[in-house]
């Protein structure tokens, strides 16, 4: 591990820390509909949108109405994407004349993008037209992030209000988040990326002759506009298959740094928004601290194992020590322009958040280096997390932590002055259970299922024939696929050919389950909390700020994740490491 590497990690974290407050404050004014420096420019547009959509921005919704609005919006927009994919050959901006995508792949991709997962079971530059990428996918990149932000805000309102029936208006949240937060950031981001060499055109693909005389087709397209929101909205679906490892998506160390910064920008700021809205900044910083501890632990672990390399690499005569000229360690699957520290940092950040963009192949990480992204997603992506999703996920864990340990102070557990009772516990457990069952049941089934000849689902034989690896690493690949889908991450461990009906449909379902069956219980919690009175704070109140609560929260997140997934992980990355 090099000083340079440490400095870059420190710089990254320092910048996030510095931006948390201004970003949080800005988002608070936006989401509360208060005046901010963009109001003058954008409020006419905002009002115009309300008018043409028939939205009364002063009317709020109960949690059930909020949930129904979200589900309806998601259903309609997913259907639209599905249709676009099925009919892209008939639509314009298709210079490569790609044909219609298969029904199962279209379902998978629609489910994947509507849930902010952005798992891609195909090679985009060889499958999808510019139009679908630009409008179909990018629209979801904005909308799924804005919806996530809205849900987080709804939950926070549940804590902040008392004796209230409503938790906000989904449509207003959606429009405000898109118009004031995501859109301006994306425009600035896209322009910056363009300036650094990220392409933005509608040209047909370039065919070039290489020095060896071979013919190479080089993909083109409107990349920059999609790239910025891909990071800012923690979406992660690349324009190219190689994602942020591709020089057209992520050309320089500087763009790499900015892309990583974009992943955490909104999620980190939301912890401040949370503190601001419940009028207790310490609570927001406590969540920020818990997230930081988990983030730094992840980065250090991944960086350590990637830089240490493996005995196998050493046996093959690879220099593992870092020198001025050589990075050392495990460089397989990593871009030389990013190096080990920035690959480990990117992998950690993208899985802490539900981004899923990659700048290195996670499949090629060392077993424990690769365990970090896998385990990050299994923890529920609550380390800063996806836009909105990270905050509401962490709040769910806070509810559980408070409930488990809160009884130990001799009071009905309270979090932020709200009593945590039957309903909250039930819903939090439900969300947890949904995550665990989706990951474990789909992975378990896939690791043993066999298909008959002429089966629609898959090529005949075992599903694991899709794997390029056997043994523990193969199991890691299966686990990673369903974990990534359920966690709405979307990054791939690679090494798995997932474009078969079996994988497309199960992974699509996992993404839907992981998103909506988690959100609905949490909205129910929001509704129930909003109705409650606030219990005044006294010396008998469980203190939910300060180091003790931060350690408790970190402990609960890690222990719940570890207890649920340890058996599976022990047969995957853990034993793989021990076998080296």
């Amino acid at each position, binding site marked *: 591990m090099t000083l340079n590497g440490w400095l870059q990690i420190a710089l990254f974290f320092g910048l996030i820390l510095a931006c948390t407050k201004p970003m949080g404050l800005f988002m608070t004014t936006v989401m509360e509909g208060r005046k901010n420096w963009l109001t003058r420019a954008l409020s006419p547009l905002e009002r115009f949108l309300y008018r043409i959509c028939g939205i009364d921005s002063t009317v709020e919704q109960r949690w059930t109405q909020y949930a129904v609005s979200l589900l309806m919006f998601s259903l309609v927009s997913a259907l639209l994407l599905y249709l676009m994919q099925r009919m892209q050959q008939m639509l314009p901006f298709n210079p490569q004349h790609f044909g219609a995508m298969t029904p199962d792949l279209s379902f998978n991709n629609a489910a994947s993008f509507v849930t902010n997962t952005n798992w891609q079971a195909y090679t985009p530059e060889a499958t999808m037209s510019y139009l679908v990428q630009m409008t179909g996918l990018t629209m979801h990149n904005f909308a799924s992030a804005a919806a996530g932000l809205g849900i987080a805000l709804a939950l926070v309102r549940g804590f902040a209000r*008392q004796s209230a029936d409503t938790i906000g208006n989904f449509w207003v949240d959606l429009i405000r988040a898109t118009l004031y937060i995501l859109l301006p950031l994306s425009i600035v981001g896209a322009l910056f990326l363009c300036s650094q060499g990220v392409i933005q055109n509608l040209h047909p693909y370039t065919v070039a002759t290489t020095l060896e005389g071979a013919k190479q087709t080089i993909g083109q397209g409107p990349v920059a506009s999609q790239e910025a929101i891909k990071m800012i909205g923690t979406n992660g679906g690349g324009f190219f298959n190689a994602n942020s490892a591709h020089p057209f998506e992520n050309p320089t160390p500087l763009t790499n740094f900015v892309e990583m910064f974009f992943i955490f920008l909104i999620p980190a700021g939301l912890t401040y928004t949370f503190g601001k809205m419940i009028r207790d900044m310490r609570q927001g910083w406590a969540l920020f601290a818990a997230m930081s501890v988990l983030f730094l632990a992840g980065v250090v672990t991944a960086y350590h194992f990637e830089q240490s390399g493996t005995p196998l690499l050493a046996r093959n005569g690879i220099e593992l020590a870092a020198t001025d000229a050589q990075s050392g360690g495990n460089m397989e699957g990593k871009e030389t322009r990013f190096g080990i520290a920035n690959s480990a940092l990117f992998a950690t950040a993208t899985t802490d958040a539900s981004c899923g963009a990659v700048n290195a192949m996670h499949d090629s990480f060392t077993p424990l280096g690769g365990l970090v992204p896998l385990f990050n997603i299994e923890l529920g992506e609550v380390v800063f997390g996806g836009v909105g999703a990270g905050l509401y996920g962490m709040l769910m864990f806070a509810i559980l932590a408070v*409930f*488990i*340990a809160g*009884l*130990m*102070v*001799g*009071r*009905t557990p309270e979090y932020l*002055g709200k009593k*945590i*009772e*039957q309903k909250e*516990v*039930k819903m939090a*457990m*439900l969300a*947890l*259970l949904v995550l*665990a*069952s989706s990951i*474990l*049941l789909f*992975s*378990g*089934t896939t*690791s*043993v299922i066999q298909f008959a000849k002429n089966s629609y689902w898959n090529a005949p034989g075992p599903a*694991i024939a899709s794997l390029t690896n*056997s*043994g*523990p690493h*193969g*199991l890691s690949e299966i686990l990673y696929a369903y974990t990534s889908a359920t966690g709405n991450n979307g990054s791939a461990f690679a090494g798995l050919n997932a474009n078969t009906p079996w994988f497309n449909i199960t992974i699509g379902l996992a993404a839907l389950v992981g998103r909506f069956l988690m959100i609905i219980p949490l909205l129910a919690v929001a509704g129930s909390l909003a109705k409650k*009175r606030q*219990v*005044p704070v*006294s*010396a*008998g*109140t*469980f*203190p939910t700020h300060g180091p*003790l609560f931060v350690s*408790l929260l970190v*402990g609960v997140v890690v*222990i719940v994740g570890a*207890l*649920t*997934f*340890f*058996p*599976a992980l*022990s*047969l995957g990355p*853990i*034993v793989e490491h*021990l*076998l080296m």
Partner: protein
Amino acid sequence: MPTLVAPEIETPAADAQFLAKGKRARKLFDAAIVRRALTDSFVKLNPATLYKNPVMFVVEVGAAVTTILLIRDAVQKTSGFGFDLQIWLWLWFTVLFANFAEAMAEGRGKAQADNLRKTKTESMARRLLSGGATETVPASMLRKNDIVLCNAGETIPGDGDVVEGIASVDESVITGESAPVIRESGGDRSGVTGGTKVLSDWVKIKIVSNPGETFLDRMIALVEGAQRQKTPNEIALNIMIAGLTLIFLLAVVTLAPFASYSVTSVGSGYMPSIIVLVSLLVCLIPTTIGGLLSAIGIAGMDRVMQHNVLAMSGKAVEAAGDVNTLLLDKTGTITLGNREAVEFICAEGVSEAELADGAQLSSLADETPEGRSIVVLAKQKYGLRGREVADHEATFIPFSAQTRMSGVDLDGRRIRKGATDSVRQYVEHQGGRFPSQVLEATEKISRSGGTPLVVSEDSRVLGVIHLKDIVKGGMKERFAQMRVMGIRTVMITGDNPLTAAAIAAEAGVDDFLAQATPKDKLDLIKKEQSSGRLVAMTGDGTNDAPALAQADVGVAMNTGTMAAKEAGNMVDLDSNPTKLIEIVAIGKQLLITRGSLTTFSIANDVAKYFAIIPAMFQLTYPALGRLNIMHLHSPQSAILAAVIFNALIIIALVPLALRGVRYRPLSAGALLRRNLLIYGLGGIVAPFPGIWAIDRLLGLAGLA
């Protein structure tokens, strides 16, 4: 005059220790209770009742599956029968141990109920007929509103209120306290309970409950747990551990395909047997808390009972732990029941002896404790003996709400004592003058928290008697502890604000409500509740009933009226209002015990993974042996040791569940730090040496 035994004043020393052993404390493992619990442990295996406890039900299903597999193995004579047999045995033990814990807790309640039932002998009652004559009927024939007469030596036939007479009553049947108590008509000491015994004098009682609905009947039902309902926190906790059970079920069930994949892929070893998977599942699911949860709840109720408090529901006990505001009556709770005369302050030109004489004369017929204390002070200070007034022509003027004075007309002297304003009016009305020096003295007394009583003779003011409230010892420390625990104490008093403030300051309460009417009290409770606080209070009078019903925790005094007892959700059989503080502590202790054992139970799983996972895959992945950090000597022994540890920890924690985690009045932060360290960190660490030791023993015994 009959000799009355004054009720014992509860000394502060008796409740100085939080959660000091109650009067009905019983040995933790009473032989008879243990015997009954052993039988009950087997009765409780019935799945039709066990399903209510999801965790233990899963264990039972696992044990049942193991039983079938064991029979199959016995028939097929497969190897490894010895191991399977031991697992089978310990899985059933796990369920039995949990049942035993619950049966122990219930048994303690049942034993109490049996004792009560013994006292519920059939007695005869003398029912008053309309003409004034009496008829003798069995107590079971009595109905509401019947009037019965009870003489000395007779058992009171049913619950009721004294409507005439005064008597000393032995209530030891109910309260366990042998000192007799006084019951009299009117006022707040009129309630009597069926089954108690009149020791002296006689009373007429109006019966208030029909047979089968008496206090004793309800008490028996409550301690027996017949009406036990799960409390809100218990339900929430149950949901959580049921959820965790499902998650672990998923983790273990999906381990089968993962194992199958691994075995096929590596090509060596074998799938873990179903018995091994069941063992892993049982070790992981929170059996410790699952097994002890109901025992903790029942034991909490029992602990309240041991303090001689009858809680009408577990919910009330749990709510006590949540209380934010304690409303405490000044008299009897914060101060010793009665005010005492401590000083005579003479008006100008009046000698102390003259004032003392007047004060004593005016109080001779005053049977209130204050009145008596005046007589006593005069006697102690000035050697004035109580005089026989029968020789004189004396007319005693009783206290009345209109005049707010009492006194005596003796040989033409009209001696009065009373509140400052009343006496002033009285004196001035007769053309006298109220000296400003006396007025100053009364104000000074008021400011110091005392009560001034002005004494006058005809139109002349003699002086002032200083009546003082005596704050119980140790209360200030108690209230300070309450403050640390985040509980606000509010003193309720009928005194004027000046007096109230002085006493409040002396006692160290956070706030006070002066000149409180029952309605003020009710309004205060509603106000506190509307800002999200939970309120506890004590009360005894009928006019306390609405407030008792409104409060989240309302503790009625057993000496109080039946109306008060009906309204509250607890009855303190000792009628000691200070006990509210103990009840709060018991409520907190109940919640802490649950939380601690839950945390402990979940934390335990870490070690079990380290024991079982390497053991399961020893042949497929020998490399996983590096996770065997306890160096357990064989796979069978590792799994067995984990299962045995898991079963034994339930039994080991039964005393803790029944007794409750030790509670100290600390701030939430300090409590959390302490308990997280003991039960969280301790829960992670403790099983490692435990499983290791069992593994060694199994090796030594040649069992695995």
